[in-house]
């Protein structure tokens, strides 16, 4: 009899604990899926989302791929979120087309899908896209470089330090945005490398990192010893490329360096004169806005709307330089440091 009572008590206790657990997890589940854990851009994004989720009382689950381009891990993360009964999630797609069928599955299951930073292909495969206009970010540094060179822009020699051989959307948008700003014609928006303008020295891949940046710039310096503009996909690639310039004795300002991202080490490099100008993005803001949007959707069913005239909500890009050019709006590195993201 005594044994039986203990068992009953235990069962009741378990049931109570279960009820408690359910109560404490009744908060809406939301997800954040980024490309990798290694890139500070995504680390900041996660911090922004975590702070906002806490403030709104959301239960945030975060996931990341193993490397840039790791589609499989992102598919698994979405499947996990669907089966967990999430209200919605924000994702930075590693592969902007391959992830689309899985996104559709999630939307069919009633989840709100917000894509951050890198738009899907097609862009309307998501409920909403919060992104920097990467093309515009490229255009800003292109215009700055053109303005800084003045007449010499006509005879410039430009090295392009790009991201990866598969040319993801962020890669071609930034690259071609720069070309538009600088006044170079390109053929197909989605593919770079076939320009006929003699000012283009060549495109080499960096993987968005220092080691790749150095090797790429060394190769391009060999190809065109008279390079005087170095376009870079991001600031780590720019820092690596600068080491190549330094080794070649070209760190005297004779080569203009432009980049995109606006991370704190990058902005410090603007202040130090390593990078001439960079377009700053706002990952923290993107992620925080996404959390707000999902919460609103869970409460009211209302979906976020894009910036008028664009297919996505533009979270903005600001040019940071200590050598402003007339006609191109910018802020200095001091102000940029206040806004930078890690």
């Amino acid at each position, binding site marked *: 009899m005594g044994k039986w009572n203990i068992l009953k008590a235990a069962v009741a206790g378990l049931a109570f604990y279960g009820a408690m657990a359910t109560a404490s997890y009744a908060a809406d589940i939301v997800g954040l899926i980024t490309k990798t854990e290694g*890139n500070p851009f995504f680390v900041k994004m996660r911090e922004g989302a975590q702070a906002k989720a806490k403030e709104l009382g959301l239960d945030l689950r975060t996931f990341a791929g193993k490397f840039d381009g790791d589609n499989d891990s992102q598919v698994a993360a979405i499947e996990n979120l669907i089966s967990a009964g999430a209200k919605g999630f924000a994702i930075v797609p590693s592969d902007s087309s391959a992830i689309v069928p899985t996104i559709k599955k999630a939307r069919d299951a009633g989840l709100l899908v917000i894509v951050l930073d890198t738009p899907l292909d097609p862009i309307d495969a998501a409920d909403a896209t919060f992104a920097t206009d990467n093309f515009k970010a490229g255009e800003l540094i292109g215009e700055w470089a053109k303005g800084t060179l003045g007449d010499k822009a006509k005879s410039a020699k430009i090295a392009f330090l790009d991201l990866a*051989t598969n040319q993801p959307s962020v890669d071609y948008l930034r690259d071609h945005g720069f070309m538009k700003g600088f006044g170079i014609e390109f053929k197909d928006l989605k593919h770079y490398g076939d320009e006929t303008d003699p000012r283009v020295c060549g495109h080499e891949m960096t993987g968005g990192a*220092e080691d790749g940046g150095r090797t790429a710039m060394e190769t391009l310096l060999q190809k065109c010893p008279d390079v005087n503009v170095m376009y870079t996909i991001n600031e*780590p690639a720019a820092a690596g490329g600068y080491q190549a310039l330094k080794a070649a004795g070209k760190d005297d300002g004779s080569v203009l360096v432009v980049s995109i991202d606006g991370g704190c080490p990058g902005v410090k490099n603007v202040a130090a004169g390593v990078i001439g100008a960079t377009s700053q993005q706002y990952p923290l803001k993107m992620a925080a806005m996404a959390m707000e949007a999902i919460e609103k959707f869970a409460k009211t069913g209302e979906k976020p709307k894009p910036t008028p005239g664009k297919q996505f909500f533009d979270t903005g890009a600001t040019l940071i330089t200590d050598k402003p050019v007339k006609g191109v709006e910018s802020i200095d590195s001091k102000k940029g440091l206040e806004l930078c993201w*890690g």
Partner: protein
Amino acid sequence: MSDDATGSATAERGLQGHDQSVASFDDGGGSALKALQRFLHEYPTAVPFIVLVIGVLIFSIAAGGRFFAPFNLSLVLQQVTIIAFLGIAQTLVILTAGIDLSVGAMMVLSSIVMGRLTVTYGVPVELSFALGLLTGLVCGLINGVLVAVIKLPPFIVTLGTWSVYGAMVIYVSHSETVRAQDIEAAGPLLQWLGHTIRLGGGAVLTYGAIAMILMALIIWYVLNRTAFGRHVYATGDDDEAARLAGINTRGVYIAVYTLAGFICSVAAWALIGRIGAASPLGNQTANLDAITAVVIGGTSLFGGRGSLVGTLFGALIVGVFRNGLALAGVDSLWQEFTVGILIILAVTIDQWIRKISA
């Protein structure tokens, strides 16, 4: 009995007019191809060397004078320094019929420890440098113990530690790059291998490249001129036979993986010299690039056969093809393509050479 004798006599008669020579080892004379096969069997390092020479010749024609300039050739050496370092570590491990997938992660982790301790935590640079070297050593030791004592397959062990060390990189670095300018100010020792010596004709040697060659010489000496080196080959060839012959194979495995880890941490020093910064980004495929160099260099993945010199040639071949193709204006996708073909070609030749002993 007499029947037998008669039978054999009949058989003898039947042989008349046919080849009556006694069975013997094929002396291989004859075709030039056979002679080449024999030559390559005796000097397996000749294969990567010939490929390297052919590569240099092709690109000297295809990419013009820009390729075959002293500076550019020295640049290729600079560009392959890091992979060659990891290739040296990888050769040691592969000679014991193992594999180390964690070499890139050990290198990046060591470089982050060196950079971050010095800049972020203000540790004296000599101390953080030593701790960085120790990091690689300990990581390698962990691999070695798991392989030799717990007896797990090296592929699985290092697949696991690749993830573990990779996660430690993120944890220790907070995903932040330690900037080149900050390292220059706080601990120039860390960038020391980035210094250069200018040779005649415009060629530039980095201290890092020299350190890599020194490391190769030391390890070459250890492998070829010491008892330990012969034990490594013997263990890789047949570890049961080696054990029965009195070799402490467990000790050999632990030493090899630990040494590999240490070499990776020296590579970390060269890496900081090269990129100036200590960065958690990049080098994602360094482990595979190192294996590529070893394989193209003719070292057998089955252990016991191969050489360090081959690995250096292997690393240089990849560097020459990437640099040459880029200078010839070839799209980066075809650079990847070519490296893939080279790997398959190298292994095909290796298999062909082995047939002579089969």
